[in-house]
């Protein structure tokens, strides 16, 4: 255990001193804060528009009323979560990949493995470092997010909101750790370092962008700007009645989406943050029950990536594969 801690400590010190990695994390934080600024500006515009509309009604002498746009602060995080989903996972891939390849490139693998280390000590130290790094980074990112919601978004947050934010943060940490470990496994397994990165990037492209994109574009409601049902003037209650006749198609579409761990992460996080309307302002137990499957799949993906990393990060495999 001491060796794992020593290796993890070395790894974290190394990453902390790596200016490039620090810049990447700062970039991620800036992107997330920007998305809150934009969401807040968008909401203010909607309020201003509403006010103009009400004033116009009053000026016309109408007594009709219109519902005021409601502010659900956590919904402002949609853009930020999508950045973590797309760009965050890309950084996670690079982080995990470079943690193995830098040892190969510097020739320090021989120095490490010529010491009396346990079979899983090397990779154990790397995994621990990845976990600690992402947990602390995600914690810091969500602190920044909360602060920007309070300060920039001027949004009142209640006790329950913080719990929801915590659950979203936990899912984010799991998601990013999974990507780093997956890339770490590929870097260990593949003979040529460049090819390992290729496979990791192609996997990222397919899982993060292509599969969700296919699922998204197969959604009939996404075929027309503003939504198909809106253009057909069909309301929500009738929409479900119509779609009940297309369960086969919808199930296929859902299955395609479910093969992407990114979509599992998105569904769970959007539910906790109330971005998906059916979960907005709902109690935690209701969201947990509704998204349990998504969380479970995410955890299964994490377990698979930890196991793969452990099995591929042994001396036998890594040293055999150094080109």
């Amino acid at each position, binding site marked *: 255990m001491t060796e794992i801690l020593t290796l993890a400590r070395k790894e974290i010190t190394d990453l902390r001193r790596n200016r490039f990695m620090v810049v990447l994390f700062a970039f991620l934080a800036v992107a997330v804060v920007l998305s809150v600024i*934009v969401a807040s500006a*968008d909401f203010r515009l909607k309020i201003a528009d509403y006010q103009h509309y009400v004033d116009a009604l009053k000026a016309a002498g109408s007594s009709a009323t219109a519902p005021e746009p409601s502010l659900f602060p956590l919904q402002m995080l949609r853009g930020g979560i999508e950045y973590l989903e797309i760009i965050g996972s890309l950084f996670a891939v690079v982080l995990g990949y470079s943690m193995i390849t830098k040892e190969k490139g510097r020739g320090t693998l021989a120095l490490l493995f010529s010491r009396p280390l346990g079979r899983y000590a090397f990779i154990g130290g790397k995994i621990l470092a990845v976990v600690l790094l992402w947990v602390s980074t995600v914690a810091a990112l969500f602190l920044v997010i909360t602060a920007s919601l309070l300060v920039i978004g001027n949004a009142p947050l209640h006790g329950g909101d913080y719990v929801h934010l915590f659950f979203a943060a936990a899912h984010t940490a799991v998601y990013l750790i999974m990507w780093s470990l997956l890339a770490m496994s590929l870097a260990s397994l593949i003979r040529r370092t460049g090819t390992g990165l290729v496979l990791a990037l*192609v996997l990222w492209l397919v899982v993060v962008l292509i599969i969700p994109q296919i699922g998204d574009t197969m959604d009939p409601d996404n075929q027309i700007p503003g939504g198909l049902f809106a253009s057909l003037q069909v309301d929500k209650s009738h929409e479900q009645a119509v779609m009940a006749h297309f369960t086969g198609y919808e199930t296929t579409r859902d299955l395609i989406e479910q093969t992407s761990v990114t979509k599992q992460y998105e569904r769970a996080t959007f539910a906790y943050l109330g971005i998906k309307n059916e979960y907005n302002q709902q109690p935690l137990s209701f969201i947990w029950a509704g998204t349990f499957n998504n969380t479970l799949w995410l955890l299964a993906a994490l377990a698979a990536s930890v196991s793969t990393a452990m099995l591929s990060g042994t001396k036998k495999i890594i040293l055999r594969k150094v080109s």
Partner: protein
Amino acid sequence: MNRWTAVIAHELLCTMRERLPQVLLAVFVGMVAASAFIGSSARASVTGVYSEAVRQGLTTVPNPFDSLSPLYYARNSVIYIVLIGALLAIVVGVYSTLRDRQARTMDLVLSRDVRPSFYLSAKLAGLGLFTALLLAVSAVISIACISVVAGRIISVDDGARLVGLYAVAWLFILPFLCLGMLAGLYATSVTSALLIPIVVWSVTIFILPLLGTAAHPVSLLNPVASPPAIQSGFFAVTSNLVNPLSLGEHFKHAGALILADPQATGTVTTSIWTILAFAIAACVAVIMTRRGRMRSALHD
């Protein structure tokens, strides 16, 4: 064969032997082919939903998809060009210049009677030819798949529009190709050479549009444009600043117009000029790289 064609032929040979471009190429061509079938499936479901809504007496409006041309099936290709095509270009560009720095073959080249600007221009021409061939093959595949899905060979006009789309796609890909080459020339490590242009790409494709229109990143993957935010106040300022830089949105806009998307409005000229300006600026930046920079050592 003169020096110019020697470098072009060499570049083509090296690029085709690299594994990463090969894999990305397979993904790209596969997705272009799949694009028509995804479009067909979506169209069939929309028609089914419409018929069901009519049967239940819920709507009287005409089927919004009735008048769509077969080019509808190519809409997803635009997204795949923005996602996979641009990434492929970045990776090919990075490997092109990094190859010479990693193997220190740049010294072998530059100790000959070869000017840096000439060598980089010829390399760029080789890569430009490679991407042009790739897109030409994609265009043929796209035309064939759409013909299969539509059940008839598409008209000459539609074929010409598809060729036009891939021609603009080449122009769109060029700045990313150059970006990759520049990263390969200027980065201090292999990882940063690959990562920096991918970060720039993600900013151009996902972050700039959000600043200008409040469009959510994932919705940008949908070929159907989301309704823009009201262009006043904050967004009036930001959209003026970031719209010219949102290269992906310009290509999607031009693509939608070329594919005769009924929802697309405006003209294609501004978008094409913007893409062209980026392409020229990027090519000039590559060609102007100095000898010392080309020879600089990598740290990993």
